[in-house]
């Protein structure tokens, strides 16, 4: 491959792609709950990078404000999701001593 000069934005969405699939792979494959949540966050960061890097910047170098607002909202939602996941994982761990979900899906509980 010849030495193609990557423009600044390209670098970031390439990184974003890498992070996205890195996170996706680990989220699917790793059994530990905490690791899955970390992977979810890494994947999310990757997607945000792709989102923002694609949009052209304003004349003064400031990134697209709508894209920034979307990423900000996404970050807040991601942390809400992570917080919920961690709380559930911790309660599960307290109750069962496990830090990962069992392989077989458990049957429904009694009413």
């Amino acid at each position, binding site marked *: 491959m010849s030495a193609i000069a990557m*423009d600044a934005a390209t670098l970031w969405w390439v990184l974003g792609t890498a992070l996205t699939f890195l996170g996706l792979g680990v989220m699917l494959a790793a059994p530990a709950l905490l*690791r899955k949540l970390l992977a979810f966050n890494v994947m999310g960061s990757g997607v945000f990078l792709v989102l923002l890097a694609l949009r052209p910047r304003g004349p003064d170098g400031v990134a697209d404000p709508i894209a920034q607002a979307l990423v900000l909202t996404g970050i807040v939602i991601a942390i809400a999701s992570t917080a919920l996941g961690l709380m559930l994982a911790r309660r599960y761990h307290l109750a069962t001593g496990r830090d990962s979900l069992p392989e077989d899906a458990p049957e429904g509980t009694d009413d």
Partner: protein
Amino acid sequence: MNAVDALLALVLLALAVACLWAKTARTGSLLFITFGLLLALAWVRLGAIDVALAEAAIGAGIAGALLLDAARQFEHSPAGQNSARAPSPWPPSLLMLFLAAVLLYALSTIQPLAGDATLAVSAALESSEIAHPVTAVLLVFRAYDTLLEIAVLLVAVLAAQAAPSAIRASPKYDPALAAVVGWMVPIAVLVAVYLLWAGSSRTGGAFQAAAVLAGAILLARFSGQWPDADRLWQHAGVRVFGLVTFIVVGLSGAFTAGAVLGYPAGWTGGLVLGIEAALMLSIAASLLALFGWKER
């Protein structure tokens, strides 16, 4: 392409790999915090200062703290069931590589319509009466999204059943810590208020202010100094106050400005600040609820 950018990107990738393959939950969380901080730098390089601040405060700071807190608990699990120790099996690497290649190809074909959104925002900025474009998008143009996002945060607190029923005994009063905290807390509160105020004209805003405020309150809690104030923060009403304020102001907009979530001319700045102040309180209370979760 800047060499510094390339280096930053490589370090970020390396940190992500290290974080996800870490041996212990604690190491992973620490690496994740580092990752978040450097990612904030990347956002700066991309021209997204507001995102950088949020990433540092929320993505690295709050998320990191939550993860570390959780990691501490997980390290106490019996060895036989602790799968965090076992190295994670190789992810479906070939599939991921293939999909990444597909995405890269698709991305390379995109020629974005130049500057559409930015132009639209700058054109409307003056009539929005908010000087800072990102704040204008968050609280004026797309305020509905922000309102729903606050609801999502509330859901997380409710769903985690994180609302502490009662903290049995406040931590012991520690005079040394209390002395330090005595001046740190007011300064932190001032910083929070500044961040809130600044949000209308430059980077800042309710969330970042709330993070600082929550940190200040946690400090106060650990020193055992103001137990009554602490109990006030745990009240359910404080958690929903921001959302309710947002909704009420939004609905009133139908009568005063002709559209729900619209602001009457001349009042935008004040109303937005008011909403953000209410949100700051609620978000701080929600964060406290998430951190106040005690093993029962």
